[in-house]
Structure formats: C-alpha cells, structure tokens
C-alpha cells in the first residue's frame, strides 16, 4: 500500500510525458497533412492567360535565388487575397473560385513566372502586418504603399491606381464633401482610407490633399463592406472607400451615391514579406519586371477595363 502510492506519481509523469509528446506528434502530423490538402488551388491560371504569350524564359530574367528560386522550384506561387472586396477579389460561389481584378493579375504574374497560383485568405490586417511566417509568398491585394507597411513589407512598382471616394445613402442631405463636417464617417480600420481621414497618410513620392473636413467622427470596421452595411443601417452618415467597390455596390442594388469627385488616387502594389526566411530581392526584381511588361503590353489596361470599366492603371502624373 505504502509503496503503491509512492510509485504512482512517477508513473503518472511518465504517462503524462508520453501523452504530451503524442499530442505534439498528432498536432504536427495534422498540420502537415492538412496544409498539403489545402493546396488544391483553383487551376484556372492557364485560362486567365489567354492574352499572354509563353512564360518569360526567353526574356532577360534576373538570376533566381532565395524565395524566387524556391517558387520556381515548387512550381507554385502562394498568393494572399482578402476576398471581401469585389470587384478586386471576391468569392464566386457558382464556380467555387476566387474572382476579380487582383485574382486575374496574380494569375497572370504566376503564368509569366511559369508557375501556378495557390490562394491563401488571411484577414487583411494579418497581411498588412507582415511577419507572414512563410505561409504565403506575395500579396496581390490592391495594397497601398504606406510608410508603415514599407517597414515590414517590400513593395513593387504600382500596378494600378484606385480612386478613393465618399459615399452616402441615396436619400442623404449631404451633397458635397464639405458638408461632412461633424458627421460620422465609416471606414476600414488600419487602412489607407482611415489614414487619409486621420490626415496621416504618407506614401513616398506622392502628395495628398486632405479634402475631407478634419472634425469628422471616424468609425472603423474590419473591412469596407461592413462599413457599407452600417451606412445602410444609418449608424454612419457617410463612408470612404475605393470608388470601384462603391460602384460595384451600386450596381448590385445598394441605394447609395458618390459625393463629389474622388478625393485621392492611391498607388497599389504587390507586396512581399521582408521577414521571409529566404531573401526576397530577386523576387521583387522579377515581379517589377513582370509588372512593367504587363503595363507595356496593355495586359493591365485590358484587365482594368474588364473589371472596372475604365483604365485606372496610369498614375496621377500620366
């Protein structure tokens, strides 16, 4: 009896240690097996590439090393997208795939690299915060090049420029941007539109005129479509977002209207994670080369016409 009770704790520790290590093994095993099964990415990249010629083996590609070499070797470009943002990126439940301008651009980039895309769909603030832990390679997500983000992410040259605008309910009294003074304005949190309202938006090489009155009450949301929902419910008087998104909402039956002209043009770029375990310089160079090529041969203009009905790939200077 005495010896039995003395022995038990040691037995328990052994049992506990064994069990804990098997938990760990199970967890890891689960991790690797499910991550491979999530690679069942839509294989539509070849279809999206009907306009382009063969992949860029012939042109003068920079020497592939680091993350670029790893992508080329695996044959897969892992792209993050925030599919809450039509017509840039959204879920098409009829086909079960992602669709939009960013999706087409990413597929085209992958095709020109000679690889296929694989999608990851983390929350937007997880993408902009950097520290991707190698979960995906690039963000093709209409991301603005802000100073804060440039500390954790490396940006390519802009691939297009989105006009930002103010929207109100169709029956609102607000007719001009000046009338927003003292009103509640909805906006996505930690995004360029919030920085614009806060007058802290800074993008190297661009100057912004802050046209929205300083004393608006800013209400932030997880993403623009939630702000839009609250605008319809009347919890905010107006919202600031991408004009294409607002126009898409109007097209899909939301009774809102734009106020005045777009307030600013934001340059949007492909981003890669500075903290990636592999060097990213040659990947950024390769992405810049492909984006320049897509600007030059009219592919980006064509996709812009397809999704936005206008060509917004030329910068403010052009």
């Amino acid at each position, binding site marked *: 009896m005495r010896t039995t009770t003395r022995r038990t704790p040691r037995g*328990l*520790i052994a049992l506990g240690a064994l069990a804990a290590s098997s938990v760990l093994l199970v967890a890891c095993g689960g991790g690797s097996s499910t*991550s491979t099964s*999530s690679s069942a990415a839509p294989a539509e990249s070849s279809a999206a590439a009907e306009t382009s010629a063969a992949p860029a083996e012939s042109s003068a590609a920079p020497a592939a090393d680091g993350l670029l070499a790893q992508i080329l070797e695996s044959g897969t470009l892992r792209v993050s997208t925030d*599919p809450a943002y039509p017509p840039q990126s959204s879920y098409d439940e009829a086909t079960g795939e992602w669709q939009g301008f960013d999706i087409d651009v990413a597929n085209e980039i992958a095709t020109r690299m000679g690889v296929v895309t694989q999608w990851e769909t983390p929350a937007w603030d997880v993408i902009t915060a950097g520290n991707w832990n190698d979960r995906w390679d690039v963000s093709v997500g209409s991301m603005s090049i802000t100073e804060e983000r440039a500390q954790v992410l490396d940006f390519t040259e802009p691939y297009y420029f989105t006009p930002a605008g103010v929207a109100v309910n169709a029956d609102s009294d607000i007719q001009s941007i000046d009338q927003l003074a003292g009103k509640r304005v909805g906006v996505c949190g930690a995004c360029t539109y919030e920085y614009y309202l806060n007058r802290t938006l800074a993008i190297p090489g661009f100057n912004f005129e802050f046209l929205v009155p300083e004393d608006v009450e800013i209400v932030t949301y997880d993403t623009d479509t939630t702000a839009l929902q609250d605008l319809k419910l009347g919890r905010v008087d107006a919202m600031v977002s991408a004009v294409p998104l607002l126009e898409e909402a109007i097209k899909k039956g939301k009774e809102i209207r734009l106020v005045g002209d777009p307030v600013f043009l934001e340059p949007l770029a492909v981003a890669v994670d500075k903290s990636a375990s592999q060097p990213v310089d040659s990947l950024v160079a390769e992405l810049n080369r492909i984006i320049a090529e897509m600007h030059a041969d009219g592919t980006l203009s064509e996709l812009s016409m397809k999704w936005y009905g206008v060509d917004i790939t030329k910068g403010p200077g052009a």
Partner: protein
Amino acid sequence: MPDSSTREAVPHQRHGLAQSIEAASLAIPFRVKVAAVWAVIFALLAFAFFRSGFDIQWMIDKTPAIVRGVWVTILFSVIAITAATFLALLGALGRISKNPIAYGISGFYTSFFRGTPLIVQLFLWYLALPQLAIGLLPEPYASWFIWPAQVAGVVGIAFNYGAYMTEIFRSGIEAVPHGQTEAADALGMSYGQRMRRVILPQAARIVIPPTGNEFIAMIKDTALIGLLGTTILWADPFRVAQLTGKADFRNLEALIIAAIVYWGLTAIFSFFQRKLEARMSKGYVRTAVKAG
C-alpha cells in the same frame, strides 16, 4: 352582466375572464400549448422578415453553398472534441494528482485556457506560435509549427474546451465514491489499474452527458475559425456566408442563413443529447430502486 355569467360558467373558481380561460385550457395538453407559442413566435418572425426588405431570392440561391459548409463544422467539431477529451483526461488526472509537476501543469493549463478569450487563443496559435517556434527551434523543426488556419483553429478549440472539460472530468472522477479507491487498493491494484479498471469507467457515465453539451457548444464556436482566414476548402457555414455576402453586398441575408444552419445543426445534436442523457440516467434510476 358578463361578469355574472362567467361566474356561473365556472362556479367553483374566483371571478374573471382569466380564470375561465385557465379552466378551458386545462383540457389542452401542455405540449400543444407550447407548440402554439412556438408557432406564434415563428409567425411573428416570418412577418417581420418578409416586411424588412431582405433579398429573399438571393437567400434561396445561396443557401446550398452555405449549407455545404456543414461538413467542415462537423469535421472540426469531431476532431476537436476527440482531442479535447484526451487533454481533459490528462488535465483531470493532473488536478487530482499529488505530484507537484502534474498538478502545477494542469493548474496552469486550466487557468490560462479558461481565463483568456477563445478568439485571442486562436490568434495566438495562428500567429504567435510560429513566431515562438522560429525563435526557439532550428530549421526545419520551426516550420512544423507554422500551421494553416484550420489546423491552428482546431487545435485552439481543442485546448480551450479541454481546459473546461478538465474540470468536468475532475468532478466526475471525484464523484466516484472513495470506497472504490480503497477497494482497488485493498486488491493491490496499481494506480494505472485502479484508474483504468475501477475509477474511470464509473466516472465516464457521469461525464458523458456534460461532454455532449460541450460538443454542442463547440459546434457553434468552430465558426470562430473562419476569422483566422480559412480558405474556401475549409470554409464553414459562417465563413461561406461572409464570403458570399460580401461578394454581393448581402451581408445580413447571408448571416441569417448561417444562423439558421447552425441552429438546425445544434437542434439535431441536442435531440441526440437528450436521448443520451435519458439513457444515462436510466441506469442510475434502476440502481437506486434496487438499492432502496
């Protein structure tokens, strides 16, 4: 004269219309009355719903896609409850242990995982664990801990529910009369033999019903995994609802469908849960009658 006529109709009761209604309703079975209350609630909800300008055609079109996410919910829940049961068993043995290490670890486990919000824990598994692993482990071991959203989510839910279930299991084990332990000791059983052959089988029948309740609660909480950004292959009804709703600017409609889907799912499992509880309590009732 309505007052006096009422009095005549129900001579042995106190005055008033209320009493006469009460008397008349005595003939109607309780279940029928409850069904009538539910019917009225549904009628009011349906009326409010159809008057509120929701896009009903859109909802009909998108319901199949949202319902299809149910298999993800069930898969997540089944894996997580299995792992949580395992963790809770270890945790409970730790909580009743005289070993300071086992007791300390299990105490930390239940305190931390019950004392912090589940959604925060999910983001810690998804975002903070890889950071810790990269800081502490050499390649390629660090990459073992960089999990996709659905794995981090299921592990997070399993650990969280395991902590709550630890207390359920502990109380279940402690509810087994102490004489059982003494009898096992008297037979010269080791700790493992006593637990496996005597205590745990008796504790199991006590803890199975509340574990079923945890499972039903877990079904709903798996919706949080979508917030980590699961991709479409691993999208549960809430995630699909968010994606389809945002694509067409029909967020509210999508959320209503998701709510109904989860409600239906938990209603089904609650039905089985009631059957299970009835079955479990039956055994106790019979024992009690025999003993008496």
